[in-house]
């Protein structure tokens, strides 16, 4: 049983999906989803522990076929770190989903909603574990297709979800197809799809034009999936008009998994020694990252809808992860992993708290939360702490992210970039201040609907807020795990 955990990690939610679709009665489907995401989270935590004790990559051979003939699942320090993020957020989001889904989705669609919900989680977990490049594509499409359906389910309350889901589908498919084109070229050159085998065989064909073309296609496809500026236009409408529970799950996990896949492909397959990677590709990712950080933050300042505001801020935060990748160093990668982890917690907390407001009021705009600081103090405080963490205020996890990011940049003497990172983080204060001003400094308008809060709504969000503060104060285990993850790809020292 224990040695089969890597496959159970994916099978459990995957098989739960058709089961959930068959269940009638909305609480049954939710209960199943809660149980299975809980089991998935438990498995990820055990896998994390197993990997840490083993100190090396755990390889699971599907059907007993060894690599490179068979498909293997690889639990190394990097995947062991990302798995609990995805499954943990999925579990907490499922707890919160019950109320949000009841409020926002037609009762007869609930079973199908949870089926798609479990599928998208299974797809994301699969992308993280698999050691086969084509398998990544299949899981990518499993998670994306169900995500398109989930976003479209927002149509019951907000019909803009439909065109948003369609555009997401078009761009998502283009991104995935680009990835497959690049993979096809690599397969032609090497005759293998196993990631480790690929990286070994690439050494023979390193400087051919075909291999550079493959790198370009794969990187572009993944830039689209992770919503790196300027390929981010699908993200904001998709997150803003999706059902609140879906916004929370996707904002916290979907793009992070693509960031992870990008790291795995760029560093795990092509490798830091690959000609042109460290300078040309690194510079490109750095430039797009810093541009994304500014564009996202500035766009967030101008937004009045809270879901859109935090979706724009996600563009900026993904930019910071890209900066960590673009630094092309062990510290940079560790910073990217730290921020991936922390941002998942912050955005999960924020979107769950905002979702609780949107589910009641129909929407969550600056106008909706005017004076709400006194009416629903617990929910609003969760948003406040989440916002402060986004800026990178000390004692929150966001501070640790920024600390290591700036450290990685200074290590390579990128003084200006470090300065720009600092400035763009400080700019985030503007949109957080807008929320403080609306929620606490304004009186609640007389005609505004009365907002309420109950533990069912705010406990899931606060679980993540507490984790954000916890990892901000006791950051050592996370930092250690992130460096271990980075060392999978770049040998480096602490």
């Amino acid at each position, binding site marked *: 049983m224990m040695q089969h955990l890597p496959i159970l990690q994916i099978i459990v939610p995957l098989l739960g999906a058709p089961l959930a679709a068959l269940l009638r009665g909305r609480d049954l489907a939710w209960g199943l989803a809660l149980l299975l995401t809980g089991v998935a989270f438990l498995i990820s935590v055990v896998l994390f522990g197993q990997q840490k004790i083993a100190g090396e990559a755990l390889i699971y051979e599907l059907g007993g076929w060894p690599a490179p003939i068979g498909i293997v699942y690889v639990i190394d320090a990097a995947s062991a770190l990302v798995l609990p993020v995805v499954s943990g957020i999925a579990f907490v989001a499922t707890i919160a989903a019950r109320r949000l889904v009841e409020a926002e989705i037609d009762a007869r669609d609930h079973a199908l909603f949870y089926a798609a919900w479990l599928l998208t989680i299974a797809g994301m977990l699969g992308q993280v574990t698999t050691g086969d490049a*084509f398998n990544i*594509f*299949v899981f990518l*499409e499993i998670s994306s*297709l169900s995500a*398109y*359906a989930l976003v*479209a389910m927002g*149509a019951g309350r907000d*019909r*803009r979800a*439909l*065109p948003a*889901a*369609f555009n997401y*589908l*078009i761009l998502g*498919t*283009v991104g995935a*197809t680009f990835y*497959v*084109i690049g993979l*096809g070229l690599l*397969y*032609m050159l090497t005759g293998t*799809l196993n990631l480790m085998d690929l990286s070994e065989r690439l050494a023979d064909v390193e400087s051919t034009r075909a291999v550079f073309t493959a790198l370009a296609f794969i990187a572009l496809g993944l830039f689209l999936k992770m919503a790196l500026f300027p390929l981010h236009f699908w993200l904001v409408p998709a997150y803003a008009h999706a059902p609140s529970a879906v916004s929370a799950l996707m904002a916290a996990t979907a793009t992070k998994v693509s960031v992870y896949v990008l790291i795995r492909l760029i560093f795990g397959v092509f490798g830091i020694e690959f000609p042109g990677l460290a300078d040309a590709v690194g510079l490109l990712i750095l430039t797009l990252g810093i541009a994304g950080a500014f564009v996202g933050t500035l766009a967030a300042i101008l937004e*009045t809808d809270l879901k859109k505001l935090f979706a724009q801020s996600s563009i900026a935060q993904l930019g910071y992860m890209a900066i960590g990748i673009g630094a092309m160093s062990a510290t940079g990668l560790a910073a990217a992993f730290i921020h991936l982890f922390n941002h998942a917690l912050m955005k999960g907390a924020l979107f769950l708290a905002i979702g609780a407001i949107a589910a009641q009021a129909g*929407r969550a*705009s600056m106008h909706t939360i005017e004076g709400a600081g006194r009416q629903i103090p617990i929910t609003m405080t969760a948003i406040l702490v989440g916002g402060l963490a986004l800026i990178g205020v000390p004692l929150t996890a966001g501070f640790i992210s920024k600390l290591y990011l700036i450290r990685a940049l200074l290590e390579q003497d990128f003084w200006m970039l470090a300065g720009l990172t600092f400035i763009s983080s400080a700019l985030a204060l503007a949109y957080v201040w807008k929320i403080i001003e609306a929620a606490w400094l304004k009186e609640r308008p007389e005609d505004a609907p009365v907002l309420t809060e109950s533990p069912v709504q705010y406990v899931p969000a606060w679980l993540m807020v507490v984790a954000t503060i916890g990892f901000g104060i006791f950051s050592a285990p996370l930092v250690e795990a992130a460096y271990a993850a980075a060392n999978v790809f770049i040998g480096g020292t602490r």
Partner: protein
Amino acid sequence: MSMLAGQWNYFLVIALMMIGFYTVIARGNMVKKMVGLTIFQTSVFMLYISMGKIANGTAPILTDAAQKAYANPLPHVLILTAIVVGVATTAVGYALIIRVYESYGTIEDDELIKIIEAEEDEGADA
């Protein structure tokens, strides 16, 4: 010229790929976008399938006959999976188009943007 003759299949694939990709980007009609997307995906299927084929190769079945060259079955198997994914994508895409048409009465990008912007302006005042 010899390059064209020896690798004409890849040139065809790239031509199809660009036609499909251009249609996705340049057309505002959702159905046309989906058609472009399908052409784009199909070109990739052809890329994989034609790379598995060798001149004078037969089906990869083990027999006693002294056949030396076999087509590589793996890309074909991969593309079977990708075709299934493509069909699912197309189905979800057209389902969304139907829902958009029922809800908005149009499937033209520019008209949709106008309707959405008008609604958002109203929403901001409310």
